[in-house]
């Protein structure tokens, strides 16, 4: 539990589990309220966030939200738009009007072809999860160097750490530029040894991020020891 159980092993709940000891808290994500008490609907760890009880899922599919920074791969190109695989249930649209270049109708493929990666932002997400992305914005661009790795979206908070401390320590130890996108893709750019170190640390967090003692495991990993 955040706050009152800091350092304690988080409580794992399974779908359908009745949580009877927090009846005074409001139900949040992954919780439904019933006459018996709160019921977990997801497999994950129980969190109390300022009076709201929610389940931090251990495994989840990325559901895009407006404003999310995403790394997408071009999956198809039409005359005036690109379809991006953003690791969600549906491909996102990137219209040529929201690309950073002046694109003539029918010329989209010459700017970006199938398989290329982009750093974009989800501009609009409607209730049926259709996504429109934009590349207009500071830092949004086509990614042509470095390496992209994927992590489960629920491990992103663990990768970032409190106030970004964890990702900052990986950046400093590996001397790499790292961008963590909300859709679970991580861009790493630096020299080969630095990228290897960063990938190893990220892989360790992917496997064990939900367990306590992450800080010491990360320090050992970055120091060259086994995670």
């Amino acid at each position, binding site marked *: 539990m955040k706050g009152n159980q800091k350092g304690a092993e988080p409580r794992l709940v399974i779908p359908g589990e009745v949580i009877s000891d927090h009846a005074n808290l409001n139900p949040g994500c992954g919780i439904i309220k019933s006459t018996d008490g709160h019921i977990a*609907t997801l497999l994950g760890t129980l969190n109390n966030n300022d009076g709201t009880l929610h389940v931090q899922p251990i495994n989840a599919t990325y559901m895009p939200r407006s404003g999310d920074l995403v790394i997408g791969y071009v999956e198809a190109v039409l005359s005036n738009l690109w379809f991006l695989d953003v690791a969600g249930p549906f*491909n996102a649209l990137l219209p040529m009007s929201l690309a950073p270049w002046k694109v003539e109708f029918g010329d989209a493929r010459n700017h970006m072809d199938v398989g290329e990666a982009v750093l974009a932002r989800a501009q609009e997400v409607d209730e049926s999860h259709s996504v429109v992305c934009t590349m207009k914005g500071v830092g949004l661009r086509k990614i042509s160097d470095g390496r992209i790795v994927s992590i489960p979206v629920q491990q992103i908070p663990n990768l970032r750490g409190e106030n970004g401390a964890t990702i900052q320590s990986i950046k400093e130890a590996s001397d790499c530029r790292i961008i963590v996108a909300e859709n679970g893709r991580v861009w790493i750019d630096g020299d080969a040894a630095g990228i290897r170190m960063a990938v190893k640390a990220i892989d360790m967090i992917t496997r064990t991020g939900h367990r306590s003692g992450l800080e010491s495991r990360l320090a050992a990993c970055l120091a060259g020891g086994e995670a």
Partner: protein
Amino acid sequence: MGGYGDVKLLNDDGSRLDGRSIDESRPIEIKAGVIPAADGSAWVKHGLNEVVCAVYGPMEAHPRKIQLQDQAVIDVRYNMAPFSTSDRIRPGFNRRSREISKVTAEAFASTVMVERYPRSKIRIEIEILSAEAGTRCAGLTAASVALADAGIPMRGMIVGVASGKVEDTVVLDLDKAEDNYGQADLPMGIMPTTGEIAFMQMDGDLSMEELQQAMDYNFAAAAEMHDIMEAALRARYEGGDE
């Protein structure tokens, strides 16, 4: 459900041919997360039944004509491997596998929070590797664990259990001989946390009293099996490296 009257299925002391008592289930083992490529997966060994289930999604529903604008579609594919029984099964869909796929999907539509994922599809692949009566129940159990492992929100986990009647006696968890030569079979999908029934079929004849007895056996067995499912999910995330 042949109901052949001359086949002896109970010993003189009232126990069953494999030594179990009438309200005793076959041994069950469950593991979660057995297929790394899937979003969620599970392996169930129930008696001599062996089932692997993989869950993918939510993903875009294809073909588009199957999309529902306000909820996800649950697409179940139940399949018995050709080598799963003593007589080779012709690969591919048949009438029985279509029926089981359909009823399994309908069972999960009542517990999975499909309204969270409009226009999407949640794909459940159930593969029977070894069959010894009760594969649809083992498939339901495996699919529940795989769905939980995939992080799909559900109101509860469905447990597949069955009871039946042999030699005018209601027994829990029929094995192959009891299923083939018994008088009735009552497979059910139960959510033990709420006490709800998500799936129920009946083959053969049961009186009202026998039906009640069979349901009581099923509910008791479902509660025990739910604990094993829970332990499998906890072992995956608390004990192991992954």
